[in-house]
């Protein structure tokens, strides 16, 4: 099976505080997943679960503590000296479209700079053609965008502009970090549908990072659920979201409010008192809130177990027909 991007055993430890009082925090703990060409893969979880850190490492904005990242068969560690953002293959878009562009600069500058830096056109005339062509992919045109400042666009429009900028270099992988959470709910689908279309028409692979499981279900093929630095469950969306196996995935799935007054929450839940406490926990990080907690959960971190095509980090599935992954 061909893999567009493979992340293997990625770990990132942050040390915070001064020389005198170091606090070590494992933001990403042995994270492994892969993305196939032309696939939308979701990395889902709550804030502070490590999904953004993972994205930053893939993009080269952070150095991993350990682990490998392989893009198109090339190990990142071996192509040293060249930053990811100088390659054409990976591009990214961000959460807040208004933060994506400098409010004091005209948006089209970024497009011309990209064209210039990646040598996508020889003349200004050609550059405009290239830019216009890309803008049309996201439903905009050069005329309605030239010479405008970010504040002159609406959030939804600007997010599409941001996607267009990323598409200029014709990447095969787009990292989208919470691309719709700052966009009004009524306009979200226009962005999400765009991913779908780009995937189908342009064979674009997308790493879709979100806490919004409903759009994740709608748009992606496979999903990984992250919790406090660990991927606790990974597999096809149909399975992970319709019959979640890990107790945390179950809680997360149940907590999504559905736009249907007949499906109201009935069960009561317990919240964690502090996040640090869970990060520092030995064993399974969810043990403090898990309704099925066992003694072993508090002592040793669980390994991935393959249950029916889904990898789950949970002792509940030990001794089932499943076999641990090598």
């Amino acid at each position: 099976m061909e893999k567009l991007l493979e992340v293997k055993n990625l770990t990132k430890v942050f040390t915070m505080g001064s020389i005198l009082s170091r606090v070590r925090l494992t933001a990403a703990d042995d994270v492994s997943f892969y993305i196939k060409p032309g696939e939308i893969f979701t990395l889902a979880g709550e804030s502070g679960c490590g999904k953004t850190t993972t994205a930053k490492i893939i993009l080269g904005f952070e150095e991993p503590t350990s682990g490998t990242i392989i893009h198109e068969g090339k190990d990142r560690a071996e192509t040293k000296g060249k930053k990811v953002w100088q390659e054409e293959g990976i591009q990214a878009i961000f959460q807040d479209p208004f933060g994506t562009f400098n409010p004091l600069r005209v948006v089209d500058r970024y497009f011309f700079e990209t064209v210039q830096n990646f040598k996508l056109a020889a003349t200004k005339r050609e550059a405009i053609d290239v830019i216009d062509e890309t803008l049309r992919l996201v439903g905009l045109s050069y005329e309605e965008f030239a010479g405008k400042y970010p504040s002159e666009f609406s959030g939804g429009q600007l997010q599409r502009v941001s996607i267009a900028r990323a598409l200029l270099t014709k990447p095969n992988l787009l990292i989208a970090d919470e691309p719709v959470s700052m966009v009004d709910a009524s306009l979200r689908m226009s962005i999400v549908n765009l991913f779908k279309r780009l995937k189908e028409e342009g064979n674009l692979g997308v790493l879709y990072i979100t806490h919004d499981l409903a759009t994740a279900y709608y748009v992606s093929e496979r999903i990984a659920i992250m919790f406090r630095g660990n991927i606790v469950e990974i597999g096809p969306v149909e399975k992970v979201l319709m019959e979640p196996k890990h107790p945390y995935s179950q809680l997360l799935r149940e907590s999504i409010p559905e736009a249907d007054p007949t499906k109201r929450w009935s069960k009561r839940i317990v919240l964690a008192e502090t996040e640090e406490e869970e990060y520092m926990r030995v064993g399974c990080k969810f043990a403090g809130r898990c309704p099925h907690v066992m003694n072993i959960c508090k002592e040793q971190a669980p390994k991935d177990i393959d249950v029916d095509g889904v990898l789950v980090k949970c002792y509940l599935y030990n001794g089932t027909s499943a076999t641990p992954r090598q």
Partner: protein
Amino acid sequence: MRILKDLFRDYRFFVSLSVLVIIVVMAILSNFSPYDPTLWNVVPRDTKPSAEHWLGTDSNGQDIFWQATFAVRNSLIISLIASLVSRAIAIMVGMIAGYKGGTTDRVLMFAGDSLLVIPIFLIMVMLAMMVREFMNLVVLGLMLSFFGWAWDARLIRSIILSLRERDFTKTALLSGTGTVKLVLKEYIPFATPLIFSTLINNIAWAIGLEMTLAILGLVNLNIPTLGTMLNWALFYQSILLGRWWWILTPVVLSLCLFVALYWMSVSISEYLDPRTRIQRVGAQ
């Protein structure tokens, strides 16, 4: 143009700009002075203001008006050297500390903070004493600039630090933009208003310090500046002898200059800072 129009709505901007224009015109007039400012007894001594000598003459035998044009010019030169050079230092230090971070940042910021904490006026007095013979406009300007960058470097650094974390930094990098271009094109525009308003403050600071050092006799007293004019007036006991026109000229000029510079900086920074601007127009 719109910016100027908006600024002129603030009477402080209008007043300060007018005063500054008059003062700059005065400085330019020094080129047309009929008298050499370094010579003594070029006119009758100690005469009251008259049609011939608008602001009277002093005990050195100089026409006070023309002497004042040189004084204003030289004070402005010193303060411009001081403020421009210190701004250059502040921008460099602030940018490097903010963008590089880590040890570089800590060392640079420690140096800057030390300048803020140590009573630098006294250090300057020591330094001025040691180089008194070599003191001229440029040396004094450079000396002041060496001590005047710390606070602004800190401000610029904090701007860069917050900008570095903003997503558009990543957008620029992903667009293939290099570090130098990134800093110049993406970050400098944010710091420009601040640099500009601190530039004005720094000019006032430099003029004030020059005056203080001059009154202590720590500069070259043969070069007319607002400070040395005051020094001479005090030296010849102009107050006790009732020569008010002599002492008042540098005092009133510097008063106008300080108030005008301050008003201009307040007006500009209020215009540029949305929070205070909003308070002024009363919007939410």
